[in-house]
């Protein structure tokens, strides 16, 4: 994973929301990188901070109450957090594009889909109206919309959800961005359509050589589509890995629990293994490792309850934030805590 292969690297990103009830630390110390032409998936349950991470990269966190409090976002050699609004505008929609979960509400209902796509093309590529329009039709054809000449003049509500998401994708890739952030692109769609959209994204990625930052809660999608995965839990990345490795051998207890709790086709269990408890609220995070109240080990482990483990590379290309992950102890800091709290049972990787 050499540096020059990275298109985007996020380092120690923290985004907080300053609300009346207190500071909600939506994203804390998140670091990951997206390879050129690769797909990086951020996976996690609702409220874990994955969408805010994406919005932070786009610098679209609503401000106030939100604010990027620290960290760097290096994209194509530039630190996005340090850019002015005007420069950022040149990147948005042009170098980095984004698609959202709800295509219905994300498209402006009162403009034709064509004019919405053409707007981006004209803005970033300086084309005149006619050429931008021609490009728009071409884009629609590219994202697999039949009869694009006709449909380009339609309004979003005249299309089905799948079509709308295709339009969103067309709008996003119209300026051939090098990074596409897809925030739960298929959650609102039916299973059969989901697959179509994911296929489309994959196909476009191959054609344009763009990278995709895929944000989803669906581990199935991640397993099928991602090259690298970051698992987020309660505003932090708890496990960062190459995808196949993650699914064959999850290292963090949360990842393990998640994978086991999924009902799978072809397997007939009497009961599903579960992760007990529930996802903590950002204003109400537990001390120590945030997963400890739901963790089979952490529940009665003093260290887990008081000190939060950092994300650390435990094997080649695999980072975990868990005191009991295999090989986590190869660290000076670990030794310090071990002497304080004593050694505990090892977390097995195959339970």
């Amino acid at each position, binding site marked *: 994973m050499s540096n020059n292969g990275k298109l985007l690297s996020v380092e120690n990103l923290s985004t907080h929301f300053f609300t009346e009830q207190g500071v909600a630390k939506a994203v804390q110390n998140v670091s990951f990188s997206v390879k050129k032409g690769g797909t990086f998936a951020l996976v996690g349950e609702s409220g874990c901070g994955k969408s805010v991470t994406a919005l932070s990269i786009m610098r679209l966190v609503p401000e106030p109450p939100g604010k990027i409090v620290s960290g760097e976002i290096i994209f194509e050699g530039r630190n996005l957090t340090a850019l002015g609004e005007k420069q950022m505008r040149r990147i948005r929609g042009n170098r980095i594009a984004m698609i959202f979960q709800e295509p219905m509400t994300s498209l402006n209902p009162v403009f034709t889909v064509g004019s919405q796509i053409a707007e981006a093309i004209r803005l970033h590529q300086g084309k005149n109206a006619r050429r931008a329009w021609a490009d728009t039709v071409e884009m629609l054809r590219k994202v697999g919309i039949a009869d694009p000449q006709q449909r380009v003049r339609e309004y979003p509500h005249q299309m089905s959800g799948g079509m709308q998401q295709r339009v969103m994708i067309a709008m996003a890739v119209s300026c051939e961005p090098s990074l596409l952030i897809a925030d739960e692109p298929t959650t609102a769609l039916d*299973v059969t359509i989901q*697959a179509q959209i*994911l296929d489309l994204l994959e196909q476009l990625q191959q054609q344009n050589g763009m990278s995709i930052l895929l944000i989803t809660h669906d*581990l199935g999608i991640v397993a099928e589509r991602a090259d690298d995965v970051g698992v987020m839990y309660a505003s932090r990345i708890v496990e960062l890995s190459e995808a*196949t490795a993650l699914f064959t051998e999850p290292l963090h207890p949360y990842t393990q629990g998640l994978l086991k709790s999924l*009902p799978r086709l072809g397997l007939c269990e009497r009961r599903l293994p579960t992760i*007990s408890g*529930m*996802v903590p609220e950002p204003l109400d995070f537990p001390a120590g490792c945030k997963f400890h109240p739901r963790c089979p080990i952490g529940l009665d482990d003093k260290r887990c309850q008081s000190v939060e483990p950092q994300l650390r590379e435990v094997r080649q290309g695999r980072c975990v934030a868990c005191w009991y992950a295999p090989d986590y102890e190869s660290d000076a800091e670990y030794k310090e805590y071990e002497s304080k709290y004593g050694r505990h049972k090892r977390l097995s990787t195959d339970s």
Partner: protein
Amino acid sequence: MAGTNDYLLTVDNLKTYFAIRKGLLRRTVGYIKAVDGVSFKVRSGRVLGLVGESGCGKTTVARTLLRLVPATAGRVVFDQTDVLSANKPELRRIRREISLIFQDPYGSLNPRMTVGDIVGEPLKIHSSAARQAVRSRAYKMQRVATLLSKVGLSPEHINRYPHEFSGGQRQRIGIARALVLEPKMIICDEPVSALDVSIQSQILNLLKDLQDEFGLTFVFIAHDLAVVQFFCDAVAVMYMGRIVEQADSEQLYQNALHPYTQALLSAIPQVAPAHRGQREAFGGEVPSAVTPPSGCRFHPRCPLAETKCRREVPPLQEKGPKTGHLVACWQR
């Protein structure tokens, strides 16, 4: 319950149409056939899964069963009572004996009522005057508390409001409400699809435990075949208002006959990394319900479609003797 052969619920050729009105006099010019000739039977104590994409009519079936939506035609017999022609007291009984669990854990609980009131309200409504004394508030609270602990919540939550709970907990409240009248049957309308992954399994386990404990009959509506497989004894696959395939769970998953069922199964992304890149893409979209395709409604998306499929509606027929495996396809 009578003999095991008895079906608790029999749905026969159920149709629910919604009129499309147009023109000066708002005349009905056509119908959206949300449910168009659906038949199925549920044995007591068993779980029937109803699977399909959004808009296929599965939720409408659920609502029609309780007469929350008027049916256009057909027959629904629940526990020897004809639901569609039931009079007021009969309907009351039916609504006591069939409970609904909803998809949206946020929208399905009244935000202005405490958990105790939400769960206890059905009791209040269905307490007859004679039993009023017994079914006092104290009794009600007692029963609610018991149920809450049964669904995995603390009885101390009784005076709390829904917004103080997480999605999973709210779904538990919804389940408690469904159980409070000791129903014979529960219809679950996508009970886990709005929940987080780690919570889904908890709720599914809970439902399964409850079924084991009370011997309940379920109609389980979902779009996720994996979830259905886990929970259901039999599965019916719906497409555009009709059942296209129906079979025992095992049979269906091992030997799906209808091309639509096959496509659905194939479309589910699998966590097993071995599946990577194996899935076939499945084209097309669900056509408009206002102008459904002629013949087999699946034919525009079907890889096997022939002329006959375009012209004639395939009947739902048993494939192979005594298998109970029904499919509506000319090609099988």
